[in-house]
Structures are given as C-alpha cells and as structure tokens.
C-alpha cells in the first residue's frame, strides 16, 4: 500500500505543479465565484435564479473535471514512458499494477478535493443568493421548500385494475348482460376493461372526481408542517392557455380527523401547481387520500406522465443532496480516470486523449447517437442505406461502442439538486458499483495487464 500511496502523492504533486491542472482549477473556482452574480434565471424569482445557478455550476464543474480527469489520466503513464521516468520507478520493488492503482488514486484524490471545494463554493453561492431581496410574494418560501430542502416525492398508488374489472364483470352478470357471451368473450371484455382503467385512471372527466391514494408516507401527523401536492393538468387537445377549475378534497374518507376543508382553485393547464396541505391530513397508517374533482364542465383533465401528479414532503437538508450529487459525479470521474489510464498504458498522450474524448462524448450523448443510428438504418426507414455496404458494419461498431460506454445521463443528479428532490442513496451506490467497481475495475485490470505485458523502454540501438 505504501507504494501505491507514494505514486498517488506523486500524481497529486505533479497535477498541482503542472500548469494544465492549475488552469482548470482556476477556471473552475473563477466560474463558481462569478456565476451567482451573472445568472438571471427567469429574471423574476429568486427561486429560479438559485435553480439556474445550481444547474449551471454543477454542469460546468462536471464538464471541467471530466476534461481535467481525461487530460491527467491520459498523460499519467504515457508521459512516464515518454520521459523515461518510468525506468527508475519500475526498477524499484513496485508491481506495475500498483503504478496504475497509485495514479488512479492520485487523480481521484485530487478530484475529491476539487469536489470538496465545489461543495463549499456552491453552498456559499446559494447562501448569498438566498439572502438577496425579492419582490414576488411567496418567492422566498418557494425557494426554501422547492430548492433549499430535500423533498421526497411519492407517486399515487394505482388502483387494482384486475379487481375493478372483476367487479364490473360481476355487475354486468347481475344485469344479465353477459349471458350470451362465450367465456373467451368475457375474457376479452375483462382485458379491455383493465386496459381502459389503466389508460383512464389519471384522467378526470368534466364534472367528475377521482380519488388518488399516496401510501408509505414517513411523516409525523402530529407535527406542524405541510405536504405539497404537485400536479400538472393537461388539456386533451394539447392547449396550454386555458384554465381548469379544480376542487380538492383532502383526507381519509373514513377518518374525520384527517379531513380538510375543500380547496377550489383555478389553474392554467400544462403548468405545475403546488398546493400546501397540513400534515394532519395523513392518516395514522401514513396514507394520504385526495379526491380531485374537475369542477369545470368544459373538458377532461389528465395527468400525463409520471411526474405530473405527486406528493412531496421535506425530509432533509439541501447540503446532503448536493453531497450525493457530487459523489455520483466523482464515480463518473473515477470511470473516466480508469479509462484514461488504460489508454495511457498503450498509446501516447494525444491518441489516448482523443479516444477518451470520444468516450466522454458518447457517454454524454449515447441515447441521441443510438436514435441517430436508427434513423439511417434501412431496417427502420425502409430506404436504401445511405452508407451503402459500409452501413451495417459501421452501425454494428457504433452500437457496440455506445453499449460499452456507460450512459452518463443515468448518473446525473443535477436536476434533483436544482429541484430540491431527494437523491436516493441507492443511486449513489449504483454509480459506485457500476462505474467504479465494475467498469473502473475492469479498465484498471486491463491497464495493469497491458503495462505488465509491454516493454516500458524503447529501442535505442
């Protein structure tokens, strides 16, 4: 371990004393210092300004540290070989895998330190912005609840569609409307009923109401405080400039203690609405019932998409979320460092850099690349292959490469930080397991094998 530690210390010293690392660090710190003063958000609310600042700062730090990691890792071993400093290192009692491990550790220690600085700088920026004056009523509260806290979001539990369909079948039988129908026909009716319920349970026809149930809420109903019901009704015709009249009946229908006075509100469709609800509306089993009625007789309102209806409640501090977000970013950097080192063990710095830039590009836009390849695939389009006979092998190589490279959008929690949503700990563990322990380790082993197998000296005779 002492050998690995010695190499790691050397790597950190080298990174700090090399101008390229200093430039990156200076740009990062400068950016974090300037952002709070230049970011406008929607130009009106403080909440939006803080959210934009967070999104820009975390995005920029992610990009800058990714580039720094690629440069450092690609130079790490290749430069040792080019400058021949590797001669005096591998002629010491240090296994070559330890050289790779030490370099990786050094880069990741530097990254951890820089992410620590980021944590402090972003916290300071947010602290500064949160104290700026605002003229919008409720803006400061919105900032506090929607950005500067960590909220857990709960989706409504879908009803038991099978049971509902069964009940409907029973009713139809009682009304003798299924007596001439074969068993297969009844089954078809049942299936179609289930499909209908599934498609319609998030829609509320005009003049009707629908009950939504949120379970497993970890809140103390005896405490002062609020839940926030967040929803976005949509118009069936896709209109966005009409208002819907909505009435909310909160509380367990069988528990009078939980029942609240109805709330009626007019809300623009296609916009998120947030309604505070006292914690006392949650019953003793941690279940919250809300009946949403469309008081308008004009059109059916629908909650499309998973996020269009949810219940949010605060469970922690903003800093914890920020820490988790940066921890996930560290895992991404760990993967990039391992990849850069592996490349650095068998090609020169510029070639390794180009390869890793490609990896970085693909990992940031893998989904788009897959779609792009679909669009030119004659199997999808039915047209002639624009790349002629080279199309199939090129697409195969492209798809294989995209599949091998992790999709970084799956390991990006910036959105959660900006919207004050809890970053589940499992995300961090997934990133650590998948990016560091599996892919990072595979690349590390590959780098070690290459470095052990290759000759580190070049012909001189």
């Amino acid at each position, binding site marked *: 371990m*002492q*050998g690995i*530690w*010695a190499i790691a*210390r*050397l790597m950190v*010293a*080298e990174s700090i*004393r*090399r101008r390229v690392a200093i430039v990156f660090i200076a740009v990062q710190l400068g950016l974090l210092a300037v952002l709070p003063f230049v970011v406008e958000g929607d130009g009106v609310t403080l909440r939006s300004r803080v959210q934009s600042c967070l999104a820009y700062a975390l995005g920029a730090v992610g990009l800058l540290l990714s580039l720094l990691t690629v440069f450092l890792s690609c130079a790490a071993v290749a430069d040792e070989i080019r*400058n*021949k*400093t*590797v*001669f*005096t*290192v*591998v*002629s*010491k*009692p*240090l*296994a070559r895998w330890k050289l790779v491990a030490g370099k990786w550790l050094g880069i990741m220690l530097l990254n951890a330190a820089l992410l620590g600085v980021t944590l402090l700088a972003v916290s300071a920026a947010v602290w500064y912005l949160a104290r700026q004056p605002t003229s919008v009523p409720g803006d400061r509260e919105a900032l506090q609840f929607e950005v500067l806290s960590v909220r857990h979001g709960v989706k409504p539990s879908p009803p038991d569609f099978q049971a509902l369909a069964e009940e409907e079948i029973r009713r139809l039988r009682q009304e003798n409307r299924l007596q001439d129908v074969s068993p297969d026909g009844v089954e078809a009716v049942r299936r179609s009923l289930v499909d209908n319920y599934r498609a319609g349970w998030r829609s509320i026809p005009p003049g009707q109401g629908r009950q939504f149930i949120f379970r497993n809420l970890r809140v103390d109903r005896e405490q002062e405080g609020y839940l926030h019901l967040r929803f976005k009704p949509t118009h069936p015709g896709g209109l966005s400039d009409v208002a819907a009249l909505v009435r909310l009946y909160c509380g367990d229908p069988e528990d009078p203690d939980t029942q609240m006075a109805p709330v009626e509100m007019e809300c623009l469709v296609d916009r998120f609405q947030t309604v505070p609800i006292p914690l006392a509306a949650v019953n003793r089993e941690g279940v919250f019932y809300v009946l949403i009625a469309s008081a308008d007789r004009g059109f059916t309102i629908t909650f499309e998409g998973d996020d269009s209806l949810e219940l949010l409640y605060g469970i922690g501090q903003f800093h914890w979320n920020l820490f988790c977000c940066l921890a996930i970013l560290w895992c991404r950097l760990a993967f990039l460092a391992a990849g850069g080192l592996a490349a650095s063990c068998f090609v020169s710095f510029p070639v390794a850099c180009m390869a890793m830039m490609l990896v970085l590009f693909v990992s940031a836009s893998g989904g788009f690349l897959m779609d792009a390849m679909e669009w030119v695939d004659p199997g999808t389009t039915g047209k002639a292959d624009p790349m002629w006979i080279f199309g199939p092998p090129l697409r195969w190589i492209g798809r294989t490469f995209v599949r091998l490279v992790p999709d970084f959008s799956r390991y990006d929690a910036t959105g959660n930080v900006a919207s004050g949503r809890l970053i589940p700990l499992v995300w961090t563990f997934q990133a650590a397991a998948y990016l560091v322990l599996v892919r990072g380790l595979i690349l590390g082993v590959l780098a070690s094998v290459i470095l052990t197998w290759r*000759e*580190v*000296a070049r*012909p*001189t*005779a």
Partner: protein
Amino acid sequence: MVATAVPVVQAVGLTKAFKDFWHRQRVLAVDRLDLDIHANEVFGLLGPNGSGKTTTIKMLLGLLYPTRGRIGVFGRPPTDVAVKARIGYLPEESYLYRFLNARETLDFYGRLFRIPRPERRRRVDQLLEMVGLAGEARRRIGEYSKGMARRIGLAQALINDPALLILDEPTTGLDPIGTREIKDLILFLNREKRKTILLCSHLLADVEDVCQRVTVLYGGRRQAMGDIRELLSQRDLTQITTERLEPSTIEEIRRLIERLEGKSVLSVTAPSDKLESFFLRIVREARQARLRTSGAASGGQIADFLASGSAEGEALIASLVTASTRPAPAGTTPETPAPPPEEPAREVIDELVAGARRSAEGSPPEESPAPQAAEADTGVIDDLVRRAQERRAPGE
C-alpha cells in the same frame, strides 16, 4: 576478489531484436550474449555507443524483455518484484521528476522501497550530504545542471543500500572531481561493503580504474571477456621505474641489457603526470585557497547507512542467492542498517587506511592480485583523509 559459485547476474544466450510495427526484425541490439557477474566484483560492460550495453542493462531490470535467451538476477527472473528491493539502478541519463526537488525525489524513491519514515529521512539527509547537494535540496530538479541531476540520480540508486548496483554511464556530465568521487565511491562500496557493481561505460579510464572484470561488446556481441589485468597486460614488455637517472647511467643500463639479454631498449622517457591527477591537484589547491564556486558542492563523506554496519559480503550474497529459491516478502532490504557510529567519517577512514596498509604489506607487488586497484585505493584514501582533516579543522 573471490567469486562465489552462484553468479549474482547470469545471462545465457541473451538476444534482443528490435522489430518494427509489422514485426520485421530491424536491429539485433544484443546477440547471444553470455554473462556471469559474481558476487562482490566490479564488472565492466564496455563498448562504443550502440553496442548493446544499455539494452543489456534494461533486460536485467525487466524494462525490456529478451527475444531469446535466459537471464537471472539473484537466481530469479528480472521481472520478479522482490528481486528489485536489492538492486540500485542509475540510468544512462537521470530520468527524474523535474517538478520535485532533490529531497522529495529521494523521499519518493525511499517510499517505493518501504523504508520507514525516520530511517528514510536519515538516509535522505546523508545521501544529500554525500553527493554534495544538501545546500540545493529545495531546488526543483528541472533547474539542476546535468552534473547535479547525475548526483541526485546516484543518490536515488543508493537509497535502499543495494546489494547489486547497476550504473549506466555514471560519470556522464560530471566534472573530473565528480568523476573521481564516483569512482572512489564505487571502490569503497565494493571493497568495504562487498557490493556487486555492474558498471556500464564507454569511458575507458572509468572502467580501467575500478573494474576487476570486463566484457567488451560490439554490435551486440561479446568481443572479449575476462580479468582486466589479464586483458591489458603486455607480457612481452618489462618496465623499470626509478628516480631520475643521468644520461651516462642510462647508457650503461642500455649496454648491460644488450649484453645480458641480447635485447634492445625500446624507449626511455620521463613519465608525465596524468591529466586527471594534474587537474585534481590544481582544484585541491584552489579549494585550499578558499575560492568560491556555484553549483554542486564537492561530495561529502560516505552516507552512514552505507558506511556503517558490518560488511556481510559473500555471506550476504550467498544468503540472497539461496533465499532466491524461497519466496521473500516484497520490499525487504537485504541488510538492516546498524545505528550510526558516533564518528563515522573517522571510522571509515581508519578502516580504509588499515585495509590499505594490510594489502600493501601483505604481498609483494608482482604477486599482488590487484596492483592497479591498490594504486587507485591509495589515492582514494589520501583524498579521504585530507578531506576529513579539512572538514574537521574549523570545528576543532
């Protein structure tokens, strides 16, 4: 120098061919080289540029892999990490980290040998003192002159108190004083510490001064190998050296030789001083006159951890070679340095003087096993004694 039966370094049919991208053989850098380096000897690898010396050394260290043939260091393959704990290596140029200073550099290499921190600090201080860079220890190596970088390169090769020291062109870039000091150090490490040293050079004077056995390489092939005295001796000539003679006496001797042996005298000359000796004398006088200079100071006394402790010599090497048959923990240094004596410089010098006297008195010159080495030794001792006295003077 007595050699043990098992060589410290053994190469059999060692061949290295460099190939191009298409695996076509481009250069045969080393061609079927057989090499045996025994314990406690200074072995010279001699040859012009491009003769395969450095390639051979790189194969010994596992930096290059042989195309054909077999190579063993302490009975193990050179890629064995444990073996490297016993080797000190000075490359042909000091490939060091330019962004570190001298102290950080030595500390870094000390860490790679897992030397504990207090011991590491002690060794670093002593080595910096020994190579004359104690005053420049905080300067980055990128700012060093070639000679200074060479000195720090040598210091890193000695940080682990190695049993086998591989020096590739150690005197390149050094002034004559530095060169002399390195040669003295080689002789000291070999004689007093019974270290095995492989010296690779194209500077014939270096090799001649310190090596006991040499291999001459040319075109990657061994051209000659053996005891340096045997290789250099001119058996059909006899040289007589006396104090200055009158021309009439010389004429008398010439006639006597012709009468008794029937042979003619080939030349009669007054021997001139070697340029190296002349240069060293001038500098010594200038130093005594307290003239200042920049750059590295002249080397100091031998580092305690190298000078102290009993020289286990053959026993040590034998145990290393024997140990090679069983796995040894990585990073263990073969010798545990004893605590430093109170007056190391005096002890070292006393030991050296005593040793030199013994060898001078013990056997007649014509039967002496190493007359040239003994001559060099006396020079070293004189120099060491004089320096120690100079250094002691201000304190007393």
